[in-house]
């Protein structure tokens, strides 16, 4: 019994229908973590990409180092570090926040590379026209660069969104009760692992397919020239 919901192990079908609501509760945690993590990755990836282009060497080099560090250390290590080491230094965060931050930061390192590639692909003439019009750097990025970068990076960003979604079960190691963690607990209590784990796999598969299709649609809908400004 979990969340006040009892399971029925009499037949496989009864078992499946009785644990589905429990897994769906876990799924809401999974989805929330993935959405929040990806929101962080989209914003921080851009911040990293812009800082890396800073004219101040100390800023661009530090950023490059941080990005490299985030990319080259396992998510699990970062997760343990944030959850078990930081409290020793007085930084205590709830498990969910910690998990979302770790996911978001690691993926920021990936998305910052995607942004970087997208920004580098903007033709030089666009920057020169912007300079000739005396636009500020803020305006150049907001009105000229970002709208043109978006359609180019949707496919790569979509891949990372899906990858991050599939990586959320790792959060169970810091006690977050997401879908896989719950399935595992059901297994421990009923000695039946096959069905709960299969169901988790199928739910992931289904959602990943939906996600990919949505990204593909977005990709097709966005004009190649950029997000239109009237």
């Amino acid at each position, binding site marked *: 019994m979990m969340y006040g919901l009892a399971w029925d192990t009499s037949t496989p079908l009864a078992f499946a229908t009785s644990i589905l609501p429990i897994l769906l509760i876990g799924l809401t945690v999974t989805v929330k973590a993935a959405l929040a993590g990806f929101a962080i990755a989209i914003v921080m990836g851009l911040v990293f990409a812009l800082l890396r282009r800073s004219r101040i060497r100390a800023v661009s080099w530090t950023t490059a180092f941080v990005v490299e560090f985030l990319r080259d250390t396992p998510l699990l290590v970062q997760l343990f570090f944030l959850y078990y080491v930081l409290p020793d230094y007085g930084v205590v965060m709830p498990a969910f926040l910690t998990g979302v931050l770790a996911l978001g930061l690691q993926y920021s390192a990936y998305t910052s590379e995607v942004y970087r590639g997208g920004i580098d692909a903007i*033709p030089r*003439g*666009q920057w*020169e*026209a912007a*300079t*000739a*019009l*005396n*636009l*500020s*750097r803020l*305006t150049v990025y907001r*009105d*000229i660069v970002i*709208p*043109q970068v978006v359609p180019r990076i949707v496919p790569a960003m979509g891949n990372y969104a899906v990858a991050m979604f599939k990586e959320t079960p790792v959060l169970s190691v810091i006690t977050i009760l997401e879908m896989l963690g719950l399935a595992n607990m059901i297994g421990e209590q009923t000695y039946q692992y096959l069905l709960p784990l299969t169901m988790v796999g199928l739910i992931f598969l289904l959602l990943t397919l939906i996600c990919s299709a949505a990204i593909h649609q977005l990709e097709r809908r966005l*004009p190649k*020239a*950029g*997000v*239109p*400004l*009237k």
Partner: protein
Amino acid sequence: MAMQSPAAVAEAAAPIIRFDGVTKRFGALTVLDDFSFAVAPGEKVTLIGPSGSGKSTVLRILMTLEPFQEGTLTLGGHGYHQPGGAGAFRASEKHLRAIRCNVGMVFQSFNLFPHMSVLRNITEAPRAHGVPRAEAEGRALDLLGLVGLADKKDHFPAQLSGGQQQRVAIARALAMRPRVLLFDEPTSALDPQLVGEVLGVIRSLAHEHDLTMLLVTHEMRFAREVSDRVCFFNKGRIVEQGDPERMFRSPEHPETRAFLQSVLA
């Protein structure tokens, strides 16, 4: 001498553009060496010369797209210098922006913003500089009228011909009301049948008394027609300059003669 040289005239009228001993290098390649050049307010000057002679570089330095290594550039009263070798010194962004206020540029490849409507391309800079939207759009529509594209305001650049795109680019450059307008081979990327419409627009601008124009072009007949002064460039130096009629009729320097023969042939 009865007649003052055009350079002396420019000098007398407190030039709007002045290069003083400007040296520009790309690595080991020196493109401009101790280059001095002045343009009077309202003057229409054409730079001609073989490819690679440094004409674009002069325009790009004026537009602050290229730093330079030595000398001083004065633009509309704003001094701008970058002493010390290897481009180590950069003028502050604020200073560069003050200089850029005076200048606009039309590029060979148009460089319109592809994700913006024609109207937005033209209103973008004024709006970013605080002009209210309605006023910026009013101004843009006037400019579109001027370049003969009032009916295209909601189109996107990809829906226009090259000639139309370049006319929009001219309107866009004018929207910031620059005192100096630079044209770097504005018709070189166009199909021959589209050159005329762009030259027509530039010709009408040449009648604007207060607008200073610096034009790089290979359209010699056009240069002769609209310029107050033609400068023949070779290897980063002005070899010969003067009244267009005189330059094209009887060039004095053998290099000028050879160049004109090759392009007019």
